[in-house]
């Protein structure tokens, strides 16, 4: 057999293939790489699938938080207990009154991990928008309702 450098992998592999030596091992190695690759892909896909299923509860929790706060505020506006006309520019109304848009305050829900909610009124030229944002873990739900100025 032709003498060659031990550290040259490509040359060695080519020589093995050329001489028919270790052919089944090479074929099995290629097969192993393919199967391992498919296992990795399978693992990634199922992990994503599980994460998506886990996120459903958070999405439901975020939806309930935002939608219930939004409809409650809407009810208070309809009943005239919250005067929307008095809002002339951006205003955060829940959990605290705040007129500076850069100072966002959140209400943390202690019984649900990583859950927080806030509500604010955005003032546009001819509409006022009630915007309620709820975040639970990685899930976020934004409830909006427009009111004519």
């Amino acid at each position, binding site marked *: 057999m032709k003498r060659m450098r031990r550290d040259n992998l490509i040359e060695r592999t080519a020589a093995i293939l050329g001489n028919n030596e270790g052919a*089944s091992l090479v074929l099995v190695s290629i097969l192993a790489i393919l*199967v*391992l690759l498919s296992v990795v892909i399978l693992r990634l896909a199922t992990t994503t699938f*599980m994460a998506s299923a886990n996120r*459903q509860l958070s999405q439901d929790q975020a939806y309930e938080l935002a939608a219930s706060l939004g409809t409650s505020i809407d009810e208070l506006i309809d009943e005239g207990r919250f005067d929307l006309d008095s809002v002339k520019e951006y205003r955060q109304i829940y*959990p605290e009154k705040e007129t500076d848009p850069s100072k966002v305050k959140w209400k943390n829900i202690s*019984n649900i991990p990583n859950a927080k909610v806030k509500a604010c009124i955005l003032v546009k030229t001819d509409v006022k928008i009630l915007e309620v944002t709820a975040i639970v873990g990685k899930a976020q739900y934004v409830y909006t309702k427009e009111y004519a100025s």
Partner: protein
Amino acid sequence: MKLIPKTKALLLANKAESMAEVLVAFMVLTIILELFAQGMKFAFTAENYAIDRTRDSDKAMKAMLDTAISNSDGASSTTLSDNEPLDGQPGMLKLKLYTVIPDGGGDYCVYAVFDAN
């Protein structure tokens, strides 16, 4: 030499098939097939878990809504606060917590729901 005839010739020739080589190849194949079997098992477990989890979440959401609307006993409710402020005015909102325990056990599903006071 082209690749396909070369591979064919390689496979037909018996020169390369020493006992050690076949044994090692067999071991490598066994290991990767075991890995693949484990991967498939994990995938089926994950699928069942995802189906159960989604069904539990849907059931819990329905039980919570039934309790909130018609006071059925599908979920237990506690008032977290009935003095939540709105625009600086206290006592405008109340915050209730609904807890649903899935039928087959598992994690509690907890929902926080606001209501006008």
